[in-house]
């Protein structure tokens, strides 16, 4: 599944604790992507992807048929957001509050296309493969280019930066209402 590849790559690059990469790496369409050898993370990602698929199905953004011939596909869209937080302790007058400040957010736009015939299927598969390769390379580039905003690593925990995977709905609900807080301590 493509999104698993993307998510795995993101986490591979952004889990700053000491990780062990999965070797041999997982692959999709012969594209090897790195993943962290962590079953808990895998479970979380799987769960999130299930939600994503559900969100896709119920997506209210189904495009009507468009004039050109191959547009009779039903396109569904959703978004997947992965956020990384930094724990900051804020010292107030009388209390210390731990605050989590998001220092990076990855937004993955997901759209699913249902090919209607064989040729389209092939075309879609090909474009998906090249897109995936591009995306994984792009993740590497992004990660390499922007290193300065990463907060200092203050702990020796396995994962110094808590993260969240969320699927914001398109209805414009607030963060609070649609968030599923899954914080890994």
């Amino acid at each position, binding site marked *: 599944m493509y999104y698993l590849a993307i998510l795995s*790559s993101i986490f*591979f*690059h952004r889990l*700053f*604790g*000491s*990780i*062990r*990469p999965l070797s041999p*790496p997982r692959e999709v369409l*012969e*594209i*090897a*992507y*790195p993943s962290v050898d962590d079953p808990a993370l895998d479970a979380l990602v799987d769960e999130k992807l299930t939600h994503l698929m559900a969100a896709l199905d119920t997506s209210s953004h189904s495009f009507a048929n468009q004039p050109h011939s191959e547009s009779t596909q039903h396109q569904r869209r959703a978004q997947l957001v992965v956020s990384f937080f930094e724990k900051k302790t804020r010292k107030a007058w009388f209390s210390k509050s731990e605050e989590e400040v998001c220092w990076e957010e990855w937004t993955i736009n997901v759209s699913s296309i249902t090919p209607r015939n064989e040729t389209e299927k092939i075309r879609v598969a090909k474009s998906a493969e090249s897109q995936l*390769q591009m995306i*994984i*390379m792009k*993740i*590497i580039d992004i*990660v*390499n*280019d922007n*290193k300065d905003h*990463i907060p*200092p*690593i*203050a702990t*020796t925990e396995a994962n110094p930066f808590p993260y969240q995977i969320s699927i914001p709905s398109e209805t414009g609900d607030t963060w609070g209402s649609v968030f599923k807080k899954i914080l890994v301590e």
Partner: protein
Amino acid sequence: MSLPATVPAGQDLRGPATSGPVIGPPAKDPSHASKLNQVVQNFFSKAAQVIIQSRMPVSPIITDPTTIQKKTNKWFNLEIDETDTFRDELRLWKAADAALVTSSFASLPPLLIETVLDTRGLTANHTLVVLDDEGKLWNVDAAAAAGGIRADIRRPEIVLERWRIELDPRSINKLGLPPELPVVYKKSIVLFRSLYAYVRLLPAWRFRKKLSKAKLNPSSLKISCRVLNGAYPVSSRGRIGLSMPLVLNTKDNTQNHTFNKIDTPAGAFTVHVTYRTNCEFRVDDSESILSSHFLNLDEHSTRRYVSATTAARRSRTSKSSPANSLPFASSPARGVSQADPGLSYGSLSSFHHQSTAVPGASPISALRGTATGTSHERESVTSSLSSSPPRNITAGTRSSLKPIDTSRPTVQPFKSPALSASPSSDSMVPGGGSYPRLSYHRVASSSSISSYQQRAQRPSFSSTYSAGQPRQSTSISPINAFTPSSALAVSSSSVSSTGSRPESGRRYSSSFGSRSQRQHGSTSSSSATVAVQQAIATGSAGGSGTPSDDDNELGEFVRMLDSRRPLKLFTARREIDALAPEEVVGFGTSAPRTSLARFQQLRDSHALLSDSMSASVVVQQRSPVLVSGSYSSTGSGGSGKAISPHTPHTPAIPSRLSEGLTAEYYRDQPVFEDDDDDDGLLDHVEDDGGLSRRRAVKKPGLAKHDEEDELALDKGDSSVSLAQASQAHMATAVTSNSNSCSSGGILPGSLAKRAALRNSPSAGSVHSNEVSSHGGHFGDDDELLFAMSDMVIATTNTATTPTIPTPDPKEAQHDTRSQQ
């Protein structure tokens, strides 16, 4: 310079336990310096590890032999196994002293790691080619020659990548504060993750994966790494360097990538890589390269066939050494070919008979002449290279090829325009005229077998098959090579050709040279013909270069076949004639009118072939009587009446194979009864020889079901059964042979394999296993024909190299066991 000591405690970066850094506040210079050294040393070492471990197998360091605990390198928060590969070479960087680096720029040279493709395992019969983005093959040696390397010696190495890891002291920012080590470490974490991921996205990774996947036929190619000191210039002498373009139709053979630099107090870490974009190397037989070469030439005229060919080519385990080629591959031809880099595929030049230059020889005839010689079964399915033209054209083709050689600098041998351009140097027909003919040939898309077989022998066939084809020149008509684009035609042609020619062994001795002398069209053992032709195709790598050698070897082989063949063939023919004269159409007569007849012929030929092979290879177990008996059943055309229904009693088969077969047959029988005439297949009362025949019986009946199924998909029963039946022939013969050495367990295993499709006879599946193990990819629609041809080749090879079946059945056994 004093380092800032005001790093808050909270920012201490404590590295992981095992071999990670412990970087505290950089309060003290010595401690900081040592930590910096550690960071630098480990940066180099770990970068090298990541790269090397992803390209070649390394030996891990075992810290605790009892628990096989491997030492882990956890530096930069990336856990990888620690190895001591290249320890000596990396010593320079592992002992880096950051202070020295700052003071003397030359103290720590860049670390260069090259990924190279080791071609030392290739023999002269191999041709190394590389695939480009469109699937075209490019001959490596030719391209190298075009680039200025001497072409007579194959280079032992081809550089695939070059990594450069450097600590550049010149980019120290002297004005601001030096970067803090924790930041450096943190950024290095990011870098190493990226490096680890990136290394696996490069073409060399994919190529390595493909190499390691070919377990059945381990490739003779190897990927290895080399650690170099970047202080010295890298010389690519004696090897094909990165800058040598191997794919000549694109400008950029290599690409670069640089990871963002990481500033450290001692300089800036940079990691840079230059890599080849096309790393899909293949090892092919010289002949197959030749035909594919011509395919490429023809590309613009019949693009789809080219793509089909490349697909077919890819489907093969092309990396395998040509185990299927007969041992008569003539090395001398290789030598010749090497001297002709312009033709690059070596085999092409080998086909050159530096003999008569027939004026007006067209590229087509050249193609034809060479194509026939290069029939590697799977390769040439789509190769429209038709059968060899009549002798004068054959000679002419070679001569016409010569100009290509000489005009090497100006000719792109892999492009059709080059070929069409070459007429200037020869009296070849201008491209305009040749191309239509080429395309005509292409459309034929006959397997090499058919091309061989149709060589000027069966006018009836040509008329049959070329019915839909534009006859563009009279020179083509005698060739009879052009089967219609349908695969059916291919099979038919091969069938017909097998049925028709009584070729003597001598006929096949040289693909091109002697062929001109030997185009008899008698109806000798068809199976032998098929086998021999294929043997020639596969084995005679550039055989024409030294026809005498090929002649001798091939002649021996064919004689061996011939020794047995006449008996069976004639017997069979008599039988068939007696039983169903109207069905034995293709047998030495005019073209069969029905695919049924064609399949019958194919089956017959296969049966004969298997018989010959088993006779030649195995001492006992064969009795000609069975052969005739089987043929009689075959001749009955699938009615199965000639064959007694499968009776659940142990057949009087002496070999273990038979026993296994028997059991499996019983098991399979119910399934077969779904189809008509299945019973005939299951009658294995007689010994192995008869078994194969009986399996063949199935063919007609199934063929009746759906004649076109053979070409259709593997779901088509008839096609599958046909293939299986054919395989059964081979398998029986082969397995009988092998079973004398191996256990009968193979059969059950092979049965299991085939059971998925239909419960084919065990022998059939055994053979399919064997065929697969021989390198043919079976199971796909279009590849059915290949498989059939492959089977013949395989059986041919088995016959000639009796040792082969022994390991194969074991392999098949192993495969089938796992399937079970």
